């Protein structure tokens, strides 16, 4: 059980990190989108390995099936050939990349310093299939107000997207 769990986790982690690096460095936007889809699917696998079945399905359906289709749709609408022949990185790419790595090193140090207090409980083999019910319970009782605010946010975003993509702004 433990070995299988570890194999799944490290396989999905390596897949996610490798395709994320490829996503950032590709010249073709469609290739970048496909590699981002691979990263999101690998993350969905990690969610499943963490016994969060509902978020696994949400990740696959909403992220990969919804948001990424929207991205690919917009990529098809903008002109791909012109931007592919231009320089892909901006002028300050070296400084920006170094600063991002410094930021990563800082957080890495923080996590490394506090890792003694982090322990995952052992996985129960006969886990009851109650994840979706538990999420729904929390979402519709304890987090009712944030849920409603999120729905209003979606409404506002929908109106904003329609206004932005209109022919005459």
């Amino acid at each position: 059980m433990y070995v299988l769990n570890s194999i799944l986790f490290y396989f999905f982690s390596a897949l996610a990190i490798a395709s994320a690096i490829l996503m950032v460095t590709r010249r073709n936007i469609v290739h970048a989108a496909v590699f981002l889809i691979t990263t999101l699917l690998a993350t969905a696998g990690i969610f499943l390995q963490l016994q969060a079945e509902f978020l696994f399905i949400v990740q696959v359906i909403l992220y990969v099936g919804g948001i990424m289709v929207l991205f690919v749709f917009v990529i098809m609408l903008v002109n791909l050939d012109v931007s592919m022949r231009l320089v892909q990185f901006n002028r300050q790419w070296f400084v920006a990349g170094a600063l991002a790595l410094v930021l990563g090193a800082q957080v890495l140090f923080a996590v490394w310093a506090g890792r003694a207090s982090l322990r995952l409980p052992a996985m129960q083999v006969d886990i009851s299939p109650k994840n979706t019910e538990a999420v729904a319970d929390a979402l519709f009782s304890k987090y009712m107000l944030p849920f409603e605010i999120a729905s209003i946010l979606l409404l506002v975003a929908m109106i904003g997207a329609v206004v932005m993509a209109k022919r005459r702004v």
Partner: protein
Amino acid sequence: MIPVDHYLFLSLALFTIGVIGVLTRRNVIIMLMSIELILNAVNINLMAFSRMWGSVDGQVFAIFIITDAAAEAAVGLGIILAFFRNRETVLADEMDILKW
């Protein structure tokens, strides 16, 4: 059992790659995709801690973050479409005017 800090290291790696993508690429669509990657890295953190504490609060917040990502993608791509229609470019360093 896999320790939680391995999940945090994975999340940190994805987050750093996303920050590098936002800061160094010129294409706005790739920058938006890198932002999605950053939000995704945060979700991994939330799920790992939710599993560690044995409660679903982290998963509920991950749902809210996915909602935010959907809203952000819709509005951001709408802005990119409007901008491309007017300026025929998707490069961030040519977006230097407020009105045309």
